[in-house]
């Protein structure tokens, strides 16, 4: 690698860091993304001048195919489908790292150093796990395979065994003989490991899984950087690895669960289960009655959840909020960190519906204000508002920080049925005398509310 190439790589790494730094505020975030893009462009262009490249045919083919797929996917994906899109892109990043490491093995000339072999195995292993894990996450989020945990007998034993096999084969490859068969066997073992480690994880735990896979894709890139002794790969991989780890930790904290519990707990249902035990009376409101309640409310906090994304109701929700504001009410949005299927999922949906970001509050910013609020309007959220998390020690939700919706003067919940949330736990709040249940599809109910308030 020439000095010029190395310096341009350094510049690219610096641009990546500045790009991420600019993401600390929504005002500068777009510029930050542009800086990172510029860094990537510089790194790609300078690489094309590398003397090792003799033939551009395959490069051009690859860039065209990949570019076309990337542009198409990015332009057409719906904001509600963002979690699976990110999972898929992530998987391709992991696959690329594994493929580069494998190609590097194929074109080895002369006996490589042990450090190269070790990082080669790691890159192939992590990259393959990332790719297949991400594919499973994509399939679950897209509804191709069911979202509920799929658990095999002795699942964790099998996974542990697979990891040992992959590492053992890698060890043979490094210390015994760098034969292709061993590396190929590592690929097979990591493929199974990638699939089997994500398949037992249920829908609402997806934010953790996606964050973790994000981190893996960074680690895979860094490992490939070690193989190629390429510092820009190492720096970028480390940045992404750190980012994914931070998000993973934030998500786990927001559910009060350890990473091990998320990965191995197989918690959850598909969210459609029947309510256990006898039916208790609830206070049911029609949209007309609900509209009258909202009409007289001075302060409203809206709590969106995954159900909002499913019903694609973000636009009509904000239409309702706008009408209420025009009538003089204070309206704010409260977002739980794990609402939706990936970190920040709800924020993106609301941004799409033109909700100004200064109307959107994080849990810590707004939780004290519920007690002074007339109506907490819950749309498609369940577990993140379940008061059982505070006191019911045997509940799977126990200890999870929740939005204090139950402290509001009254609570209005728009929901299709009384079915429990993802955790499969009944919600006390539904039966609280101050809770108004409005049954129906979120989009339909909100449209009726808008109609009532306009009329």
């Amino acid at each position, binding site marked *: 690698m020439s000095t010029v190439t190395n310096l341009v790589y350094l510049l690219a790494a610096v641009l990546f860091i500045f790009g991420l730094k600019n993401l600390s505020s929504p005002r500068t975030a777009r510029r930050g993304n542009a800086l990172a893009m510029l860094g990537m462009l510089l790194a790609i262009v300078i690489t094309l001048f590398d003397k090792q490249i003799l033939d551009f045919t395959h490069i051009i083919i690859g860039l065209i195919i990949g570019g076309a797929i990337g542009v198409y996917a990015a332009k057409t994906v719906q904001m509600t489908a963002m979690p699976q899109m990110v999972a898929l892109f992530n998987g391709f990043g992991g696959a690329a*790292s594994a493929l580069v490491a494998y190609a590097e093995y194929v074109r080895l000339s002369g006996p490589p150093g042990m450090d190269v072999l070790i990082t080669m195995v790691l890159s192939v292993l992590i990259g393959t796990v990332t790719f297949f894990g991400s594919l499973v996450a994509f399939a679950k989020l897209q509804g191709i395979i069911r979202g509920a945990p799929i658990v095999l007998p002795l699942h964790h034993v099998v996974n542990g065994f697979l990891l040992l096999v992959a590492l053992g084969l890698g060890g043979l490859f490094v210390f015994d003989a760098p034969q292709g068969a061993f590396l190929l066997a590592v690929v097979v073992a990591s493929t199974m490991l990638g699939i089997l480690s994500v398949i037992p994880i249920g829908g609402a735990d997806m934010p953790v899984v996606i964050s973790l896979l994000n981190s893996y894709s960074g680690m895979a890139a860094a490992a490939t950087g070690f193989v190629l002794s390429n510092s820009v*790969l190492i720096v970028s991989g480390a940045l992404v690895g750190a980012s994914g780890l931070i998000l993973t930790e934030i998500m786990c904290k927001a559910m009060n669960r350890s990473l091990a519990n998320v990965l191995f707990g197989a918690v959850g249902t598909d969210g459609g289960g029947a309510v256990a035990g006898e039916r208790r009376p609830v206070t049911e409101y029609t949209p007309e009655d609900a509209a009258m309640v909202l009409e007289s409310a001075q302060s409203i906090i809206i709590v969106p959840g995954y159900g909002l994304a499913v019903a694609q109701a973000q636009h009509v929700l904000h239409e309702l909020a706008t009408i209420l504001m025009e009538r003089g009410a204070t309206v704010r949005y409260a977002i739980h960190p794990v609402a939706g299927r990936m970190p920040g999922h709800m924020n993106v949906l609301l941004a799409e519906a033109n909700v100004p970001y200064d109307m959107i509050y994080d849990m810590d910013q707004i939780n004290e204000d519920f007690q002074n609020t007339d109506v907490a309007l819950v749309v498609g959220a369940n577990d993140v508002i379940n008061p059982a998390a505070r006191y019911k020690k045997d509940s799977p939700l126990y200890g999870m920080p929740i939005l204090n919706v139950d402290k509001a003067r009254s609570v209005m919940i728009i929901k299709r049925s009384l079915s429990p949330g993802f955790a499969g736990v009944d919600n006390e709040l539904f039966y609280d005398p101050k809770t108004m249940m409005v049954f129906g599809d979120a989009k339909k109910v909100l449209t009726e509310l808008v109609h009532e308030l306009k009329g």
Partner: protein
Amino acid sequence: MTASIIVSIYIFVLAIFVGFEVITKVPPLLHTPLMSGSNAISGITIVGALISAGAGHSGLSTVLGTLAVICATINVVGGFLVTDRMLEMFKPAKKGTSQP
């Protein structure tokens, strides 16, 4: 252990610290764009992929390299574009206007 791998490990560890410093400052509001944007950055493997695809060593390494270029380009192009699409939507409240 060669000297270069030690230098690489230094770079790796220090970059992780930089990552932690920079990324803890990203507000939850922007966590999805952070994820898709950082995702695109991890597509930097493309520089390795370009060399594998273009070096013309053997049939297999060219095939693997070309596949790697495809995967990495999807990751890079798709990741950055979708991040830009999202970030474009984040707007503060304009005084005096409620909806466009």
